[in-house]
């Protein structure tokens, strides 16, 4: 499976490549007053407003401040940008080697000598769009 590997803090997460629209370098988000912490703000992606989501906050693993990269993901017409703490790369996922230990993850894979958790983007998006 081709995937985009997203570094978030010390972890690596994988996103199905077909849901990835583009990777943005130094995304500048406009803050949305009163929005929950998991919303880092709004991005202008080719004339469309796309919310940038704090990937770490969505996975309950912390918080990202001023992310250097974000990957724009689209699932069922909904678009969101997932923040990353280092440059995302594409990679090939082999056989799953275990379950994911975070909610929103669907399985753990080995890529090179690292472990990568494949994310269920739809579940993640549902969490992002839910009322606070």
């Amino acid at each position: 499976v081709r995937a985009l590997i997203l570094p978030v803090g010390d972890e690596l997460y994988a996103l199905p490549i077909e849901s990835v629209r583009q990777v943005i370098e130094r995304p500048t988000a406009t803050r949305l007053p009163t929005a929950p912490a998991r919303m880092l703000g709004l991005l202008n992606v080719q004339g469309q407003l796309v919310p940038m989501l704090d990937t770490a906050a969505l996975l309950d693993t912390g918080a990202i401040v001023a992310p250097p990269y974000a990957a724009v993901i689209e699932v069922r017409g909904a678009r969101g940008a997932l923040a990353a703490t280092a440059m995302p790369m594409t990679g090939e996922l082999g056989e799953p080697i275990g379950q994911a230990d975070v909610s929103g993850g669907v399985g753990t894979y080995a890529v090179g000598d690292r472990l990568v958790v494949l994310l269920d983007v739809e579940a993640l998006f549902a969490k992002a769009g839910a009322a606070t």
Partner: protein
Amino acid sequence: MTEVEAGFRRLFAQEARQRLERMGELLLTLEGDAANPETIAALFREAHTLKGAAAMVGELKVRDIAHGMEDVLQPIRSGTGTATPAVIDSLLGDVDAIRALLDGAPSPSVPVADAPPTAVVGDVVQVSLERLDALMRTAGESAAAHLRLGRLLATRLGTDPSEVSEFRELQLVLNQLQDLTMRVRMVPLATVGYMLHRAVREASRTESKAVRWEMVGGDTELDRAVLERLADPLLHLVRNAIDHGIEAPADRVAAGKPEEGLIRLHAMQVGSEVVIAVSDDGRGIDLQQVRKAAGRRSIDTAGMRDEDVLDLIFQPGFSTAKQVTDLSGRGVGLDVVRSVLESIRGRVEVRTEPGKGCEFRLAVPITLAVIPCMLVSCAGQRLAIPIHSVVKVLQASGNAVKHADRRTIVMVDGQPVPVSSLAATLGLGDSSSGPMMVLAGLSRSHAFRIDAITGQRDIVMKGLGDLTPRLDVVAGASIEPDGSIIVVLEAARLVERAQGHRRPAIVEPGFPAAGPAAAARPPGDEARACVMVVDDALTIRELQKSILERAGYRVRTASNGAEAMAMLATEDATLVLTDIEMPQMDGFALIEAMRKHPRLAHVPVIILSSRASEADRRRGLEAGADGYIVKNAFDQAGLLSAVNRLLGKAA
């Protein structure tokens, strides 16, 4: 049927709908003025034309009904018959029957997906909404492209675009294009007049009340999308007026009023808004009853001003009527009226005079897409505030700002207005020291300190996308020509937030789980709302479960009242949906048991039963049910709207 035939039929359906609408209006006119020969002639003509057209396209059932209408109208036209109420009833019935044949769909205002994109009726061309929207989008995009071009001129060529006459000319033309496009989407309010008039007629009959309907300013135009959203709220207000406002004829006479009540819709354009007032000359809203109802929900109204108490009627689940009646209980409640208005950036207010009547005023922006705004800077961020909410701008100095009782106020037109820092209200940082902007709330004004006002112009709003949760104070956002984003604020909500006037949470007495944590839960948190479905038929349980789950509710099921009570004893539900006839413990007994239980007494209950008799309905409501849905009239939307209504969520 060939493609061509199908095309003709669709065209016919479109035309026929207009004729039916006209016939309906004529019939209602005739009801008030039974002998008017012009009205009768016009009616006959419409029926005749419809008959002919129906025969042409092979809609034989429609032809036959129209033919029958002609037969009924003929003697009246020739003066040998009279248009009695019974005759008008039967003719209105025919109109409805033809409409039902035409679409099968319940609402004629919903555009049919395969409707022909354009059609010519007389010298008017009908264009599908889809095409209009595409036109609107394109006009908007060309304006944006034009702005980008201006930026290019400035950065690449070092030319000030406003100095280039071709550029200015293009701007002028594009503005005109956008303006014209927007105007194409405007429709007169009278478009929904017939529907409302019919509702008044039907509802006043059901209630055995005499009610006159009056509409002033029906030619006031609104964006079609706005009007479509307003149809349900208006319908609700009109039904409410008959249900709760207008008294029974005898009571009216006793109170020295004319026997016939009056419901009046008055529309007018005021600046960039259209104000629609729905008023009645009924008994008005009893503030004591509102206070009592508030008390039942543990809202302390002791220190509240009358206008704030009155405002409580717009709260989700708030009703002074004890039950959801058939008449006004269907579809939407006042909380939904308010949330619909807010979703189209409008507002609703109510005024009442005991014994004399009440008036609901809806104010809506004429169009949705473009909003003139003031641009301000606040805590390093640019924000836009719709101009129609800005009452006044006060300079930082030269205005008497007073500090009293730990609050800051400023005098505006002789009235004290509280002052807050916009940044602090939005949680963006600390106080600002620039000018103050006085914004109009739903009932009160509030002044906000900002860093500076940076400009004033039209903002083209865009949605925030599916992944952004609904934020009260944010109306939308716009992408500027330089690619930056400006967030547009919702002034009324901002004022509410600043005044700490959050909708008071409903706390159930003696309910430990509803402590501070539950009370702090924002309204409309349907994600956690749990509905208990009680029915002995597995199919029905599963059907309801799937409908409710798809709508985002958590669902638990029980197969009879006893099982439901046992489950409710361990985990409460936000709402219970129950059948009547069930083994062990039936629905009536379940409701009675719940009402006696301190923790469950306030949980809303809807009965869903195949028993349609008035006696059953009354018994259910007497037992303490909040709603009654008849199974054979059951539809998904009806169920959800009843549930949403009781849980205070916009349908």
